């Protein structure tokens, strides 16, 4: 529901909206992986180094 509303709010005709949605999706996924990586290194397992 929310996703559909966000998709409809994207500018341009339907094909442009689809391309924009894919680009935003990829950026969000990369950002999420970055956050997960940072959290993993700081909370779960930093690699076991001594420093």
């Amino acid at each position: 529901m929310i996703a559909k509303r966000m998709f409809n709010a994207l500018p341009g005709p339907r094909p442009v909206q689809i391309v924009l949605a894919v680009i935003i999706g990829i950026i969000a996924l990369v950002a999420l992986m970055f956050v997960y990586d940072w959290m993993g290194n700081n909370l779960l397992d930093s690699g076991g180094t001594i420093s």
Partner: protein
Amino acid sequence: MTETTESAAAPPQRGGLVVRVVRFIGWTSIWLGLFLLGFVAHQLFVTTFFAQQNNAALEVQAEEYFEEAEITEVPYATPGAPEVTDPGDASLPTPTLLVEGAPPEHDAFAIIRIPSIDRLKDGWAVVEGVRRSDLKNGAGHMPSTPLPGQPGNSVISGHRTTYGAPFHEFEELVLGDIIEVETGLGIHTYEVRETIIVRPTEIWVTEQRQGAWLTLTTCHPKFSSRQRLVVFAELVAGPNFKVINE
């Protein structure tokens, strides 16, 4: 009859403040749960999948490095041994140590095997460096310490629960367990002498030691980077064993 039908078909009434707060908490919990579920899946499965793929490539890189590693012989005097006053005296041959050149940073140069640990039976590549990016694909050798098989204390770190978790089962290591490290010089065999748990800042565990030692460090307890599990192992066989222990 008509009234009942109309009443059932009517849209649900919008609630007041309490309903909105409860709805907000509910949705936030669902999104937070999905975020955490994704985090766990990423850390346990995604990182391990890529680490295993990359480590297989690094093992090939290490094997190629074995072929091209620069190996030299240097005179070696055991600390505390009497000095040879006349190097030309054939009756007192100077022992020579096999030394390999420093491997390129971030490249694989060794393979660690621990026969008593399932995950490390077949080996795991060791790269030069302990940066976060180095440890994502292999175990990391601390560049400021000697290479495995050399006198002193060679330090290798590795992940315990993520990125392939090569050191996952380290709590199963017992005194006397064998650790093999293959480098360009050959296979260096170490025997576990001690395991301890320290804080991550206890840098003394990396200090140099007499003889040839291997120190392995990893996070402790599992799923936490609060402490370090440290395994000290002593060289018991290998290309330089006799020279170092004479």
